[in-house]
């Protein structure tokens, strides 16, 4: 297994553990397998599934967080996505929205295009986030730590980043069977 040493959970397992802790918070989920997995694990109207525009999940989440300061906004992101839109770590770090929880599932590959390596094996993204001004950052691998730290972040003022090291395993999932305009309408109504 390439990322770090030891046994690691799959992204879908980690995601399922986090979704169990969430109720009606808006969740922005990045393009590729993460959206498809989240859709299969638990489809909720508060989920905004991205099918394209790689790199901007956290910027969409930031827009929601700024416009809805009383709602805690969660972003499910990937290492390739964060690297592509790394400037947004700085924007978030500078604006410091308290209601912003950025979860990064880091498998060190572009999983949706054939597991080409990213560079997150040598660039610790949670340290970049910390340097940019995120208030809380944690790097976790084990399920117990993941649950503990996420629960803690739900109680704290952010912005927070939870970097979750996961393996390259991908669930057997189909595409998100919703029309994008319907995803928009459903999400808007759910977070009104």
């Amino acid at each position, binding site marked *: 297994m390439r990322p770090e040493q030891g046994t690691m959970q799959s992204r879908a397992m980690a995601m399922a553990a986090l979704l169990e802790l969430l109720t009606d918070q808006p969740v*922005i989920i990045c393009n590729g397998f993460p959206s498809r997995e989240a859709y299969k694990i638990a489809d909720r109207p508060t989920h*905004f599934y*991205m*099918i*394209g*525009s*790689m*790199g*901007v999940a956290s*910027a*969409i*989440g*930031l*827009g*929601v*967080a*700024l*416009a*809805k300061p009383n709602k805690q906004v969660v972003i499910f992101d990937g290492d390739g996505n964060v690297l592509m*839109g790394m*400037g*947004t770590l*700085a*924007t978030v770090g500078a*604006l410091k929205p308290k209601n912003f929880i950025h979860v990064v599932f880091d498998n060190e590959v572009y999983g949706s295009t054939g597991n080409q390596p990213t560079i997150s094996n040598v660039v610790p993204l949670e340290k970049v986030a910390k340097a940019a001004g995120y208030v809380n950052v944690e790097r976790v691998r084990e399920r117990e730590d993941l649950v503990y730290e996420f629960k803690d972040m739900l109680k704290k003022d952010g912005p927070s980043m939870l970097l979750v090291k996961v393996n390259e395993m991908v669930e057997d999932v189909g595409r998100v069977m919703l029309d*994008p*305009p319907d*995803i*928009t309408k459903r*999400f*808007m109504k759910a*977070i*009104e």
Partner: protein
Amino acid sequence: MIESDAFVQALQDIGVDFFTGVPDSILGGIIAELMERRLYTPAVREDEAVAMAAGAYMSGKVPAVLMQNSGLGTSLNALISLNVIYRQPCILIVSWRGYQGKDAPEHLVMGEVMPQLLDTMKIPHRTLSEKAAIDDLKWLAETFMKQRIPVALLITKGVVRGLHP
């Protein structure tokens, strides 16, 4: 010349209540006015600004993104794969650098191809004129509401007062 405070007020009057973007000298006066009114959230890239605006729109805001036309290139993917596909409208206030071939070399090609680029992307656009400004803004608001896609207002040098007279 349109005063920047009048222009910002007019945008607020048609309902715009979330402003983000990346600066350009032509837009300097508008951004200064927005900052004075504490309405402006600065972005570091134009596609980031477009995505922030999309998040704000889904949260009930009427968003506007300010950018130089070079930023259209940067935000192409977000505009198409996010706004157009998901039917998320956004007002784009775009400075037209390279207008009529009179500008620094880096602006000339984009300045020439921008209208065709917007046509190709099926993004409705209009160029702000001092005489028809009220009409232009009315058109902007109507197109935003009706079409639910990005709509661009292009601003050439000297139409809205900048920072340096």
